[in-house]
């Protein structure tokens, strides 16, 4: 059966593998060039200076221009990285099932001496295998590229999906979605369209509604006086380790009652914040000292502190693992549903 499944999928598999190779090749070439230029810019003599400096020639300015030019391709690489997984999953999923049912070749296959379960297992198993073969190198290269160009924002929407192994898990999940839709719809065109809709819905809703619940966020409490000591609440600034570790995924920073048990919610903080700010505004603000005094008084009066809720970058791989397992588990359930439908299809 493996030979049959391979014979059936080989043209599409080779095309998708070639496409992935092209993306990988371009990413590696651009990544190396950007990494080299960035290292030069950050090292002596430029040391991060991005303009021509007397005594250093025009090297730093040229490097900056080169990096800016190369950065123009970054969005395309990100899009390619984000699209390649669902593309591979959808194409192989539609080919494995909907295409055969639509062309009625299942009448030929399912009247030979093999069970539908075996037929499905071979096709789905080999399809999943090829997805892993195509997407693992893609994920590795994308992850490397992300670091090579100095992008440390691992939780960014355009980064998270290509910076870890979720790219592979997502490809497998969409593959299973397409198998199930193919078994239900039995028409390649409509299956592709429905899978694209599912892909968009998941891509939009998952990061905003599900991902943040996969790990318990860190809650950082701080006195208002800390703020006056020069620390900053600005997300991602590595020189503010007292508040937020660099490259963290910040959900919100606000004022919350110190008595809050567990993770405060944004809506909880909204009510108290308005009261605290109203209180602060009632005090005179002639000097910074007045403001600090007013802030401390009001914080004390309402029993609140500054709070930042975030997922630190150290949790990146935990989040990737959990999200990936979630995709894989959902994929297995969907594939099981597809098999149940396959056993009932009357072609």
């Amino acid at each position: 059966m493996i030979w049959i499944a391979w014979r059936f999928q080989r043209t599409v598999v080779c095309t998708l593998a070639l496409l992935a190779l092209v993306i990988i090749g371009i990413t590696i070439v651009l990544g190396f060039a950007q990494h080299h230029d960035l290292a030069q810019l950050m090292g002596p003599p430029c040391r991060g200076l991005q303009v021509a400096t007397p005594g250093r020639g025009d090297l730093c300015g040229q490097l900056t221009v080169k990096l800016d030019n190369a950065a123009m391709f970054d969005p395309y690489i990100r899009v390619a990285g984000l699209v390649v997984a669902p593309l591979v999953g959808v194409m192989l999923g539609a080919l494995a099932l909907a295409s055969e049912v639509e062309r009625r070749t299942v009448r030929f296959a399912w009247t030979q001496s093999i069970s539908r379960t075996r037929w499905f297992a071979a096709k789905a198993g080999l399809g999943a295998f090829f997805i892993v073969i195509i997407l693992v190198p893609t994920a590795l290269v994308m992850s490397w590229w992300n670091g090579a160009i100095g992008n440390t924002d691992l939780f960014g929407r355009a980064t998270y999906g290509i910076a870890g192994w979720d790219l592979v898990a997502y490809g497998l999940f969409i593959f299973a979605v397409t198998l199930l839709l193919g078994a239900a719809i039995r028409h390649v065109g409509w299956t592709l369209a429905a899978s694209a809709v599912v892909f968009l819905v998941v891509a939009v809703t998952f990061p905003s509604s599900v991902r943040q619940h996969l790990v318990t966020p860190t809650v950082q409490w701080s006195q208002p006086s800390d703020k006056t000591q020069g620390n900053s609440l600005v997300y991602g600034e590595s020189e503010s380790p007292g508040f937020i570790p660099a490259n963290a995924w910040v959900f919100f920073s606000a004022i919350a009652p110190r008595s809050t048990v567990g993770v405060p919610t944004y809506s909880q903080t909204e009510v108290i914040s308005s009261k605290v700010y109203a209180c602060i505004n009632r005090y005179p603000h002639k000097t910074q000292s007045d403001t600090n005094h007013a802030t401390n008084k009001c914080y004390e009066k309402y029993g609140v502190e500054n709070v930042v809720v975030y997922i630190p970058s150290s949790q990146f791989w935990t989040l990737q693992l959990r999200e990936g397992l979630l995709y894989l588990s959902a994929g297995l359930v969907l594939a099981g549903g597809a098999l149940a439908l396959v056993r009932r299809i009357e072609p």
Partner: protein
Amino acid sequence: MVIETEALTKRFRRRTALSECSLSVPRGRVVALVGPNGSGKTTLLRLLAGLSRPTEGRISVFGEEMSMSNTDLRSRVGYLDQDRPLYERWRVREILEFGRRTNPAWDADFAAQHLARLDIDLESLVKNLSGGQRAQVALAVCFAKRPDLVLLDEPASALDPVARQDLLQNITELFADNEASVLMATHAIDDVSAICDYVIILSKSRVVLSEDLDYVLESHRLLSRGVDDGVPVPRGATVLDERRTTREITYLVRLGMPMERDGWRIERPTFNEIAIAYLRDRPRTSSTSSAINHDESSAS
């Protein structure tokens, strides 16, 4: 019996494709399944091939319940679909390889020899084959599986007369070589008497005749006499069809018992004439004594 069905019914939403079909087909026969388009032939074959499940009733092949999950039983059944759904971009050699890898009893020599005899190049792409060649490739897979029962759905449809004749000849030869039972759906009645020895006629989703072809030919007669004679149809004869000219009336009857000539001109009908009478499915009249009773009982 190779096939037995009991009150077999298949409905697709509101449409009934097969209605309370009960039949038995003996082993070692080439059976013709005759009926007009939409009569339920393809539905019956797909049920027998395990591609479909009945809405009601039972279906057994070689005494075992046929179902979509009965792989062991399916391995004893060869099926040729009317659309010949082979993989278009595959080579004929690869189609045979598919058969080899999915059928434990695969006879590779038979398949290769059969196609070589027909000058079908194993390296040809399926999409480049003619309709006749494609049917032959599908037929080769069907028989190389070494099945005990072969189901052929319109094997000669859409073929030119020569290809059609060749294909039917091949089926006869393959049947002789393989000793399998064959059930062949067709609406080309001419094919039936050429190669079949048992006939099932479906009309309006129901079985209206299921008998040995020789018996069918023996039990039907054309009875003619003058229009004005006023002689009733002989006792025990069921009128299936009648033709009138200005001077003569001819009945196609099914005989329930030996009849006396009694002034009738008696001729043997062709299978074509018998089949068409059943397919028209007119109300039948049977004579129990000397008069014609207009009951609408099924003659079969």
